């Protein structure tokens, strides 16, 4: 048995064991959606960090240090800014007012099916785009790591995802996120220590070597960050995108109260920040140790397996095949955990938001809703296999940008205004939700990534690659215009009669 197979089977067995234990403890819809709503802050913080740190944040970020140097750190700053914003603007109120999902909060404020439908469309779009990208990445990564064919790799991930979410619900998903986050941090510490050991534990010596090798270029922002408006738009999109991601937002319903929700974000901010700090040393370590090493490059000078393999090559260099296999196993666990978190968010949107809240107007039978959520997980899995297989050979990295842009431009403005602006009307909420979504979609399609890069036009209609600087203010303006002159504004949520912990009670209609 090769080291890679050993770690792969070990993590596979561990995830199935956790699923089995979680399935035994999942006995109601509340258990399924919120893991019983009693996770302690440190566990939920670890799971939040796990939900956020995808394979792109690990393998992708280290590959980016190798290719684009400092830009990778700029991405880390933008995404880390989202965590305090999440706590300051949303976490507390979301936990206090929601029950299973963000749609509960909207339903509490607006007894209007159109607002729920808008929230469902927006959440499902973000989740599905994110899921497709993760699955395509998973298929290609498992192909590279373990030599499995693409379809077999994707099917394996989806089968495990359906088992985890369908049987163990949020509890299994949370445990696997915690396991994966712990493993990622441990591997990050190992690689970081290995890199620093080569430089007598002196970061200054590492940076001096980077400066010497790249003539200082790798320590300064690259051409991708040269346009001020595009750079500002990227920063805004990275930070606000987090505040609209359904699989992150639904984590606030797994804790008992607003205080625990805040503490969870504190843990998550610290853990994500620590991981980004480790990535800094690992990434620059890969640049100076893997970059010039001919063993890791083909005849054309390209990195073997592509830039995503930089961390694995570094692991081989520092610790041999066992460390490389360990990192590969953690990459597999990362993919599995993020995909399960997304499936959980998608299933709850279908069974709770669409079926229970929209179609049954909040009067659905709990057992039937729970049953439907399992079927929804299966359906999402099948749809994700089909879609990810269809687009496997296209460059679909833009879908992540699109998911973030829609999350920042549609989900976030509607949620923020619903929680904080008493004058927001149904019309305003619809204008912000659909306006932000269409603006993000339109600006990305007409921007350089798709209009020039994929459709082959000479010039983009919209000159910037990142739309958030334009689409987010547009969504807020649409909300203001939609609510202007409308006398039938709803009361703010602070004046709702049931403004307290809603774990036990059904959502107000």
């Amino acid at each position, binding site marked *: 048995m090769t080291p890679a197979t050993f770690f792969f089977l070990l993590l596979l067995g561990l995830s199935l064991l956790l699923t089995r234990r979680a399935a035994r403890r999942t006995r109601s819809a509340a258990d399924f959606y919120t893991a019983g709503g009693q996770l302690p802050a440190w566990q939920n913080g670890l799971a939040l960090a796990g939900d956020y740190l995808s394979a792109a944040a690990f393998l992708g970020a280290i590959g980016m240090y190798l290719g684009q140097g400092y830009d990778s750190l700029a991405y880390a*700053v*933008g995404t880390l800014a989202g965590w305090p914003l999440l706590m300051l*603007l949303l976490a507390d109120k979301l936990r206090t007012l929601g029950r299973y999902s963000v749609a509960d909060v909207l339903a509490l404020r607006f007894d209007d099916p159109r607002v729920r439908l808008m929230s469902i469309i927006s959440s499902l779009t973000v989740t599905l785009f994110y899921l497709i990208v993760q699955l395509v990445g998973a298929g290609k990564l498992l192909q590279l790591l373990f030599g499995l064919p693409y379809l077999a790799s994707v099917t394996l991930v989806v089968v495990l995802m359906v088992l985890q979410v369908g049987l163990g619900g949020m509890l299994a998903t949370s445990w696997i996120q915690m396991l994966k986050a712990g493993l990622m941090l441990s591997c990050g510490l190992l690689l970081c220590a290995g890199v620093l050991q080569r430089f007598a534990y002196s970061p200054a010596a590492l940076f001096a070597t980077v400066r010497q090798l790249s003539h200082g270029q790798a320590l300064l*922002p690259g051409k991708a960050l040269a346009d001020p408006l595009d750079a*500002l738009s990227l*920063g805004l999109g990275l*930070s606000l995108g987090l505040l609209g991601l359904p699989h992150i937002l639904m984590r606030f319903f797994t804790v008992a109260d607003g205080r625990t929700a805040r503490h969870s974000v504190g843990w998550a*901010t610290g853990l994500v920040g620590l991981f980004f700090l480790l990535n800094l040393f690992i990434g620059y370590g890969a640049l100076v140790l893997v970059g010039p090493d001919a063993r890791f490059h083909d005849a054309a000078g390209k990195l073997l397996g592509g830039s995503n393999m930089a961390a694995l090559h570094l692991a081989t260099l520092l610790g041999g095949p066992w460390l490389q296999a360990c990192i590969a196993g953690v990459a597999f666990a990362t993919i599995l955990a993020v995909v399960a978190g997304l499936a959980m968010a998608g299933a709850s949107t279908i069974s709770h938001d669409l079926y229970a809240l929209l179609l049954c107007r909040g009067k659905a039978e709990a057992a039937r809703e729970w049953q439907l959520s399992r079927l929804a997980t299966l359906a999402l899995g099948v749809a994700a296999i089909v879609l990810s297989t269809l687009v496997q050979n296209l460059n679909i990295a833009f879908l992540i940008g699109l998911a973030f842009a829609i999350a920042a431009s549609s989900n976030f403005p509607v949620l923020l205004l619903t929680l904080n602006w008493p004058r927001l009307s149904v019309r305003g909420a619809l204008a912000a939700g659909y306006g932000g979504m269409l603006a993000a979609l339109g600006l990305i399609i007409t921007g350089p990534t798709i209009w020039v890069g994929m459709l082959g036009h000479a010039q983009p209609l919209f000159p910037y690659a990142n739309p958030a600087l334009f689409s987010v203010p547009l969504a807020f303006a649409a909300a203001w215009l939609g609510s202007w002159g409308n006398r039938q504004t709803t009361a703010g949520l602070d004046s709702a009669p049931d403004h307290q912990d809603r774990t036990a009670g059904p959502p107000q209609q």
Partner: protein
Amino acid sequence: MKCRLFSAHWLALLVLAACLGYFGLLAGAPRLLQGDIGGWPCSIVLALLLFVLFFAITLLHIRAENRKPPA
């Protein structure tokens, strides 16, 4: 007396301003990030200071909310 500067919305504005200011600086004046402090490049020191700022604001808000009497 309560200090409004520590209210959630002000802190959120501070985080957003710091993040956008950083990206603006990267694009508008990257030469300001050349040089180093004790062997650490200025660009990296600035990014790490922002890490610390974001974490400190998170902790500050948690502490302030924990001290509030229950409603």
